[in-house]
């Protein structure tokens, strides 16, 4: 059990739940296991996994806030990436780990690449003049929350994206473009984020809209990608950009 759930005394039905399990110390490959889980109305996948814990089925998975603000419990549910705490339990559901990051155990994937990416992209404000922000421009205030600040970094959109489906893809993926857009909107950013987006392969996005609609906090990475692209085009047309690093162009494969 990871957190306290009210007891399920009178289940309204018994559901079947399949979980792809893998213990690297014992198994050579992941395998499916099937469990019977009591169901009550509005029960979510997280509670089903926690109930299984109480019964001694120690399926490793991450969870924390259970109200869609931490993004820990992302997994593939019936083949689609989703938050377990946000997905009502249905009969014959199939649960797998996310695919973008390497599998460690059961539903836990190795996300140690994430902090590295943060540092690589330097997604923090660079202007350190010690001065307060006197006024936040209307442009950056408008939609700060609506557009990106709400992102909980669940990596669901990265999993849904068919172009950046692995960590060494030429395109960093929707969440990182969204984070670049956020960094750009901050009044103390002081970096050429458009050029950065170009180097990170924003041109490779096919606007297939797979990342749209999977976001548990209803953000629209596509809208931000389009905005970054149009900014990039404008910047290049009027030639306001600073000297471009050697050998980079829109959508070109990133140097390894």
């Amino acid at each position, binding site marked *: 059990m990871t957190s306290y759930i009210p007891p399920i005394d009178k289940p309204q039905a018994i559901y079947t739940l399949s979980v792809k399990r893998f213990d690297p110390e014992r198994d050579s490959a992941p395998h499916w296991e099937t469990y019977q889980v009591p169901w009550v109305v*509005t029960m979510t996948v997280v509670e089903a996994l926690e109930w299984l814990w109480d019964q001694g089925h120690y399926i490793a998975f991450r969870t924390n806030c259970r*109200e869609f603000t931490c993004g820990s419990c992302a997994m593939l549910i019936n083949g689609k990436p989703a938050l377990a705490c946000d997905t009502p339990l249905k009969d014959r559901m199939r649960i797998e780990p996310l695919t973008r990051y390497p599998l460690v155990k059961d539903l836990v994937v190795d996300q140690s690449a994430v*902090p590295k990416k*943060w540092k690589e992209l330097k997604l923090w*404000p660079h202007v350190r003049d010690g001065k307060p922000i006197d006024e936040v421009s209307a442009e950056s205030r408008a939609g700060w929350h609506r557009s990106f600040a709400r992102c909980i970094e669940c990596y669901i959109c990265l999993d849904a994206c068919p172009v950046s489906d692995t960590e060494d893809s030429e395109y960093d993926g929707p969440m990182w473009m969204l984070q670049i857009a956020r960094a750009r909107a901050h009044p103390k950013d002081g970096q050429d984020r458009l050029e950065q987006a170009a180097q990170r392969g924003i041109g490779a996005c096919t606007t297939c809209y797979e990342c749209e609609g999977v976001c548990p906090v209803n953000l629209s990475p596509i809208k931000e990608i389009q905005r970054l692209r149009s900014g990039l085009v404008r910047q290049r047309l009027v030639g306001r950009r600073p000297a471009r690093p050697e050998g980079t162009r829109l959508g070109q494969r990133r140097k390894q």
Partner: protein
Amino acid sequence: MSWSSEPETLRTDVLVIGGGAAACMAAVSAHQEGARVLMVDKGQLAKSGCSPNAHGGAALFQKDPNDSWRVHAEDTLMSGGFMNDQEVVRVLCSEGRKFVHRLEEYGALWDRDPDGSYAVRQFGGHRFKRSVFSADETGHEMMNAMKREVFRRNIQVLNETMALKIVKDEERAVGAFCWDIGTGRLIDIQATATILATADAAGLWPSASERQRGDGFYLALDAGAELADLEFIQYHPTHAWWPFGVRGSVSESFRIEGGWLLNSEGERFMERYDPEKKELATRDKVSVCSYLEIREGRGAPHGGIYASVAHLPAKVIKERLRVIYRKYLSYGYDVTKDPIEIRPRPHYHCGGVRANARSETTLPGLYAAGAVTAGVHGANRLGSNSLVDILVFGDIAGRSAADYAVRAPAPSGRRQGAADMVARVERLFDLAEDKPLPTAPMRRRHVEWMDSRLGVLRNPEGMREMLAEVQRTREEELPRLRVFDRSRIYNFELRDALEMFYRLDVEDMVCRSALMRTESRGSHYREDYPRRNDREWLHNIVWLRRSSPGKDEFVHEIRPVAQTVIRLEDVPAYAGQDTPWH
């Protein structure tokens, strides 16, 4: 399973235990002072703490010209039943403002008024609007900014690493003995100064989430620091209870916008308890009244009470209670038509590790900041004060620890107490025991008992029952506790089992403190002593470890509150009453 391999050793100047905003602030400030910093987080950085879930605001900005740190301090003390450490409160209320700018520099944006100045909100118990905010995601925004700064400074973070014991060298803390949940390896972190910035202990009760397990309390006490105010657990009156899948608190706005609380007979029972304020009475009062209704058999079928906004126009609900409306709708529940079931649930533990205004504990080399500390919030926390607490004292702890790390000699390498932990883990895996017990049912029982015996309504019978149960579990069941998941990596069951050891000792002290305090004050409400007693109980109950030859035990001391900043008499509006709540 063998744990006998030598633990890996890491060395640093300042070790920060925790991964929320207080821990990040402490790490950043220590790093700024030039110290080498290492963070260990039981979960993942910026995802595991409570900070991202703080929706309201941070009382950092006394914008009104009539407001001052003193007025803020008075509000804090009145809410805290004068149990607070007043020197700590003075710092809390006077040093917040600089963090508004500091967090902007780290990448946050606060909401602004149309004239460009910072927008401020008023929270219950505050006399002025002084809480800056960022939509209804203030904690998330703060955490995001702090995380960026930790990355910018390239501070080393060990994710999913649990601190098992604070290691001592004679009478000072010199780091901690940790367990990497992801790989199963043990790590001995040798640090000149150690900062404890973990969560509080609300998870001993059926708190809604994964955090707040109270490890920090035990780690500090075990090493030789003091704990105080353990009897004060704040309940939030409106936590989602049914439908089943909805979690977390139903925000205050539910009551502010005119939501009703109903018992099974359809009565607005708050009219009976508080005809004037009704549902808008203070959090503690609404919690107590709800529990009284449930106990009298007038609760809803799943054990909560009804909350309804169905009498309000659907348009109002969809506009002003958008978040709640959408949250329930995603589970197929329409709050414009059906009542929901809510129940008061633990929210914040006001007690914890005693730390002074420089964030020093009584153990040299050990610092504490944030939710794990006592003294800031007294007997009851004022809304939006905790986000100030984590920033102000995170920063102070970081600077104090860095300063100490420069002055103090490096640890000698003598490590008291690490070996016990290896033995404990090995025993947990030893299934030769003939009647092994799993953790989950044991923990579930304790969580449920804490709620029913030491929850909102307390009476001596219940508290003694709980105390007996704690002792029984410790003597009969704990030696048989075993881990059934045999895996070495990501063994979350082992984590829960290890927490059980800490939890029982903290529960024991909570029970004893609550039994000792023969009055009602703040979040501590006793049915046999329903009045506040300032004559006898302007005292803190403090726990510490006392070792004498052949004896090693946790003992308590009852110490008078030092009224060094604001005396009770100075606040006649409060001093003249004997109600437990303000």
